[in-house]
């Protein structure tokens, strides 16, 4: 072969190799395209498996987004850590736990986020099948105040757990507890600066948790550093069959409320439904829709359905839950929380006997019925 021909052949060969490499990135009508890969905003791609989710996140060293392919189930065996400044867009994908796996599913760091997905820790639901081991204190989404979180986003998510009753051999039991936590904000009792603030939780559905939302501040009195779970916003939430819908718990040891702070959180537009007891165990009958020991928190537009729910005992006919056992909203301390809402236990079948229990002295329930109220140049206190 002549030299020119040889050179041309080599050039063509090099070009061919290069283009073949490019061809694998080409668009086609088959489903081998970017939508079926895990990808991140650096432009990198990974095969769609559970292990690669963390790799895609870790590949982003200064923030960005990781997209997952939707219509797909990922079995999670290790907590996915969403690092600072990273949004995990699940694209409709579902995270599930294999049998006997009991872990926190996702942990968000400062300025991180998760959206557009489904975390289902219910495991198998077939009659008599074994079920997930998922149990508190693990959660679907976890935020640790030790990470000093000043903002984060949880948006457009569905979180599913399952009732303890499904796992029990004896199905004839009442008050089956939900399992685990849906969203868990946690501050421990340690003398380091801790914070979870500026988190937006929006459009989230919770089913069958022990605590659907658990804001837990265990910071005690020792040392000088403070732990704050303050100033977070929760909007447009639906709750079904959770033992407690919203549980806000702070360490009572800190009477100053400075070290163990649970305040200024805003909850707006929520619908709570208790579960349904049945002879085979079934769902969780809610104990509380809202259980608060924080202060200066605000609740607006909150609806609790069928609070005085029926339960079944030993397969007998349904009986009413005694009124003292059925509640909707409990404020457990002098906490200046504001509750602006209607509560509603209306139904043709099951009458709600839910209650608003105020064990503090300064909580506000703002309720004006069918009246026009004018206040001019007046500072009004009292009842």
């Amino acid at each position, binding site marked *: 072969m002549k030299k020119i021909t040889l050179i041309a052949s080599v050039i063509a060969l090099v070009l061919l190799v290069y283009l073949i490499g490019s061809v694998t990135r080409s668009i086609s009508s088959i489903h081998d395209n970017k939508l079926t890969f895990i990808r991140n905003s650096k432009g990198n791609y990974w095969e769609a498996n559970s292990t690669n989710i963390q790799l895609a996140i870790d590949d982003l060293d200064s923030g960005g987004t990781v997209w997952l392919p939707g219509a797909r189930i990922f079995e999670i065996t290790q907590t996915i850590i969403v690092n600072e400044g990273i949004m995990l867009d699940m694209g*409709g994908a579902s995270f599930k736990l294999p049998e006997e796996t009991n872990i926190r599913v996702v942990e968000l760091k400062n300025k991180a986020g998760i959206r557009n997905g489904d975390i289902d820790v219910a495991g198998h639901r077939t009659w008599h099948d074994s079920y997930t081991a998922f149990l508190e204190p693990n959660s679907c989404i976890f935020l640790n105040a030790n990470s000093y979180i000043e903002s984060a986003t949880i948006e457009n998510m569905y979180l599913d757990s399952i009732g303890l009753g499904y796992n029990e051999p004896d199905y004839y039991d009442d008050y089956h507890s939900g399992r685990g936590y849906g969203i868990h904000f946690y501050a421990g009792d340690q003398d380091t600066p801790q914070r979870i603030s500026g988190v937006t939780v929006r459009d989230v559905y919770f089913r069958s948790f022990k605590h659907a939302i658990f804001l837990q501040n265990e910071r005690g009195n020792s040392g000088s550093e403070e732990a704050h779970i303050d100033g977070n916003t929760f909007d447009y939430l639906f709750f079904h069959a959770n033992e407690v819908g919203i549980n806000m718990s702070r360490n009572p040891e800190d009477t100053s409320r400075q070290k163990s702070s649970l305040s200024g959180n805003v909850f707006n537009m929520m619908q709570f*439904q208790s579960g349904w007891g049945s002879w085979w165990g079934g769902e969780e009958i809610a104990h509380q829709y809202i259980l608060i020991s924080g202060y200066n928190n605000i609740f607006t537009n909150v609806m609790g359905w069928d609070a005085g729910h029926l339960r079944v005992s030993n397969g007998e006919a349904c009986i009413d839950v005694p009124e003292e056992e059925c509640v909707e909203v409990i404020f457990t301390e002098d906490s200046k929380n504001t509750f602006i809402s209607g509560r509603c236990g209306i139904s043709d079948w099951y009458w709600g006997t839910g209650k608003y229990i105020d064990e503090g002295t300064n909580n506000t329930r703002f309720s004006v019925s069918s009246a026009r109220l004018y206040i001019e140049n007046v500072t009004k206190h009292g009842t």
Partner: protein
Amino acid sequence: MNKKEIIASVFLFVLVVYLIGSITRVISASNDNMDTFICNSLGNCCDPEGANIQAAIDDLNVSAPPHAGYGGAHGTVWLPANTVLSIPDTLIIENHVTLDMQGATIIPQGNFDVVELRIGSQLKDGTIDVSPVTTFNRAAITLRETDYMFLSKHTPRIFNMHLVSENLRGKGIYLHTEGTTAYQTIIAHFHNIKTREFEYGVLINHTSTADATYLNANMFSNIEGHGDKYFITLYESNPEVAGHYFQIVQCYCSSDTEYIVWANGQGNTFDTFVAYDWDNNGGTRASYNFSSEEITSGTPTYHFFGSDQCYLSIRGGEEDIDFAPWALYDSGNDRYRNRFTLLELKNSNLTLGQIKGTD
């Protein structure tokens, strides 16, 4: 160059030409790329034609692991942005499927419900324009009530939608029960929705008398209406239409607008409403007189506005709106009434305590 060399060179040349042609299909700035197709999260794409939207949705029903078909992991269908797609029949968004319109517009080719959502489905970021259909009297968005969308199931979500009609035709959002089939209900969240020139902007209509039928617990936030005849209507022919929340609602009245809200259900809440130009028909709009009388069956006669908690501002009018007092709980009829509150604070502070009004 001998014959073999010529053949080899020609072969290589053809191969290079072909591959260069393929380069134009590589993700690039050219307009021949995935963003111009209808695609779904299985990675399947099809031409941007209206009929292909349903095909892309139906294609997501793959049960084999790692997928789980309808009712399993949520899948998404994306429409190409800035396109207008004409559909021949109702678009059904199947269980747990998200239709992300990415700014596209859907136009129906006839008089039928344009989009019907199922359990756990979502619709977002687009326009539904029914104005070309001169006989339109159906709905831009509805949900299938016989799915019994109770709170034990994933709630559908509808975000960022613009619904356009013309000459007061049809319904923007339509939630309804009817007939004798038991177990009908719908629970969903609607956020950032605009309606324009519908007969009914939002119609919640419960007429079924069968067991376990009701329309409760929907949430509407950031809703805006422009020139709808009846902006928001909650009607029950029998219990119950109850526990709905409307928050941050703006109504731009035209001369055709009859009312902002008409509700005869119970325990519904209307929080932060603004109505502009409510009296632009010269003050003859009788619908703005609210009565304490209960709705009678048959033709709606009385309109009243109820809320458990309501901050209300109506602008553009000179006259007060008369809110009649109404008891919270009507023991005679064993019903919770809608409740309303008109609160005005002028140069004052309201702090702590409980305020109780009078019935």
